[in-house]
């Protein structure tokens, strides 16, 4: 940490010289450049990591975009599994949705809890103009722009009455709108005597995308996902990303940033704040609607429940995790959360993920130090001893199977106590005590914390092996929640979000 000390003292020396010599070019205490440069030096990491960080920061955005999209487009080259390709497509939809929500939440600063309703409106609108439901089959190059415009108009209309409402009020109104959307679509098979949305059965046999008279079949033989849809989706992604980036660099983008900083000052400086908010609302809605056309054409069907609250929460997680306001950040968030949700479906993969996150977290918190060795060593010994004690009391306490999975699973079977039969009270008690002990951990300091950390981590492993792995579906969302909480403590602005100064 010698570099840090150097940086701390060097400008100070310079400042002292300047205050005595009064040279016009030398930096001085109280002069803004000096203060800013000093702040920069302090916030910048020293050493190799700092150099790498600096270099990465200098790479222009379009280079990142090209790199990222190329990598995504190469997924089908490296994997011919229909599952992987389909997941890549789903994640590209998440990326589009996150970009759209970022305009509303990150740029406009509005809490839009009805966002997925616009996604649903896009999907339904596309289905209605491209299926036998009404016998309308618009060509794709007409249908998609029409749906996008519809999304913007509906977004505008929903925003209109709520334009003066901010914060909590807007959140409630948009939440109501989502509920309204779900109710109308679910009961839409008998809307004033007409079958509009097909009700809970949805709309089936939606046309695939077709460009210039050539249809793009959704499966390329044998029911396997047609990878061309991934390419179409990536093209949409690039167009949306670049368009939004350009808007953000224009006077509109500046006005959005201004009104998020200080709406009153923005209004008094000549920016129509309400209009700008409505615009961001409509923008987000139109991007969601665009994404809806993709999902509806690929699935060849739409159902009300695809556009419900779990999806809303997932997209918000992506935006917050990646850093609201940063385009690259929300895309990163979408990829991370999308991949995470898939990995957590499989017990073997999720086990590896779980333990690597714990070890990496320990390394990040304790660095490579004696304390890290002490905690890891203590944990290992603690587990072996606990396993041995439990095993010598009753064999049935340790011979349970934690499910399949390679070496990690084998090791865990000899380390974590996994009973063959779990008594009913164990699950809630162990789960609640884990949460309680984690909270106690935050109150402790110094070596006591390290000592308590060992049994807490072991308990976490116990809960994971016995409780969480048995129920992958809720586990996915619990893990997501824990991840969000941890991130909000460590990095409140999200992974790539700009660090923001509130009031100074």
């Amino acid at each position, binding site marked *: 940490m010698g570099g840090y000390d150097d940086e701390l003292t060097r400008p100070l020396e310079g400042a002292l010289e300047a205050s005595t010599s009064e040279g016009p070019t030398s930096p001085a205490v109280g002069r803004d450049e000096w*203060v800013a440069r000093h702040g920069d030096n302090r916030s910048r990491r020293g050493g190799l990591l700092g150099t790498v960080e600096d270099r990465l920061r200098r790479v222009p955005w379009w280079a990142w975009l090209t790199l990222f999209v190329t990598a995504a487009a190469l997924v089908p080259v490296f994997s011919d599994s229909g599952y992987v390709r389909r997941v890549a497509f789903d994640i590209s939809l998440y990326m589009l949705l996150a970009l759209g929500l970022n305009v509303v939440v990150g740029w406009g600063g509005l809490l839009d809890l009805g966002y997925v309703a616009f996604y649903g409106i896009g999907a339904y609108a596309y289905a209605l103009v491209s299926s036998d439901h009404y016998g309308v089959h618009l060509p794709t190059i007409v249908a998609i722009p029409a749906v996008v415009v519809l999304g913007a108009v509906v977004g505008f209309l929903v925003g209109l009455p709520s334009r003066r409402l901010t914060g909590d009020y807007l959140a409630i109104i948009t939440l109501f709108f989502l509920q309204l959307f779900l109710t109308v679509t679910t009961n839409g098979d008998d809307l004033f005597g007409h079958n509009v949305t097909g009700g809970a059965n949805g709309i089936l046999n939606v046309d695939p995308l077709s460009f210039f008279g050539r249809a793009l079949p959704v499966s390329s033989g044998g029911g396997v996902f047609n990878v061309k849809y991934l390419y179409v989706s990536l093209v949409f992604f690039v167009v949306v990303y670049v368009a939004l980036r350009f808007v953000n660099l224009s006077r509109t983008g500046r006005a959005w940033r201004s009104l998020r900083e200080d709406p009153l000052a923005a209004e008094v400086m000549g920016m129509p704040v309400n209009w700008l908010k409505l615009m961001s609302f409509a923008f987000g809605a139109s991007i969601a609607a665009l994404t809806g056309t993709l999902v509806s054409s690929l699935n060849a069907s739409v159902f009300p429940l695809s556009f419900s609250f779990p999806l809303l929460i997932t997209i918000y997680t992506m935006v917050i995790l990646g850093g609201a306001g940063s385009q690259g950040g929300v895309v990163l968030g979408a990829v991370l959360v999308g991949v995470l949700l898939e990995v957590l479906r499989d017990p073997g993969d999720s086990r590896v993920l779980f333990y690597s996150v714990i070890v990496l977290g320990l390394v990040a918190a304790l660095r490579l130090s004696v304390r890290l060795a002490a905690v890891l060593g203590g944990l290992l010994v603690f587990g072996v001893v606990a396993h041995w004690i439990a095993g010598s009391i009753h064999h049935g306490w340790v011979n349970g199977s934690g499910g399949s999975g390679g070496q990690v699973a084998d090791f865990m079977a000899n380390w974590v106590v996994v009973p063959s039969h779990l008594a009913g009270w164990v699950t809630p008690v162990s789960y609640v005590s884990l949460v309680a002990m984690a909270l106690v951990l935050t109150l402790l300091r110094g070596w006591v914390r390290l000592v308590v950390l060992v049994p807490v981590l072991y308990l976490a492993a116990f809960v994971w092996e016995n409780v969480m792995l048995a129920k992958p579906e809720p586990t996915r969302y619990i893990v997501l929640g824990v991840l969000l909480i941890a991130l909000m403590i460590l990095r409140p602005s999200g992974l790539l979000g700009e660090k923001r100064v509130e009031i100074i």
Partner: protein
Amino acid sequence: MAEKLLDLQSVSMSFGGLKVIDELDLHVDEGEIVSVIGPNGAGKTTLFNLVTGVYVPTGGDIVFAGSSIKGLEPHQITRRGIARTFQTLRLFLNMSVRENVMAAAYGHTKAGVFRAMLRTPGMRREEKEIRELAEKRLAFFGDRLMGYRWDQPAYSLSYANRRRLEIARATATNPRMLLLDEPAAGMNPKETQEITELIAKLRTDAGYTILVIEHDMHVVEGISDRVVALDHGVKIAEGTFEQVATSPRVVEAYLGTGGMARK
């Protein structure tokens, strides 16, 4: 007599039962510098909020450049040519110094989002103009807000420079009239001297009409063509600095009617 640029005609403002401004008549002529003084709570900042449309007056009318601006949205009033600074600084702290000024050009520029998406030549030309405008406005402050620090975030500026940046931002709306709310607050004597000269320069070089709230009597004396004293929302004196400073009602408002006055 020069033409009235801003004319408040018996303007009143009350919040519930509390009358903050009471039938105030006030006018500012084209090219004039008028100072508003008064003790805390006299209604000075409320006056600014009324003129800029943050509040809508409960009575009377406000006329700017010959037409009423009462009831207009603040951004519409800004487009008519009134710009202000804030007593409690309200910069866009997490934006760069240059962006703060560029943002204020919104009202008199017009490239829409679709032109921005396509980056049409017209839009790019306009962006360049906005950038040049911002740099020109910042350059007005000499080496105080120069070069390298234009890309710094606004929060890294010192207090005095934040005040300067607020003025630069206000001028980027291309106003005819500037409302400055305590421009010298929190500045040291040297900086106060500088800001006094700067306000004079804003009129002579840039041609703005200026209405200023100020507590520092040196500044008021140095810049004002005319001084208006307010107390409890009522105009208690008006005239040159000497006339107002020696007015018994002003002295009373500031010092109270204790000891000496009662005899």
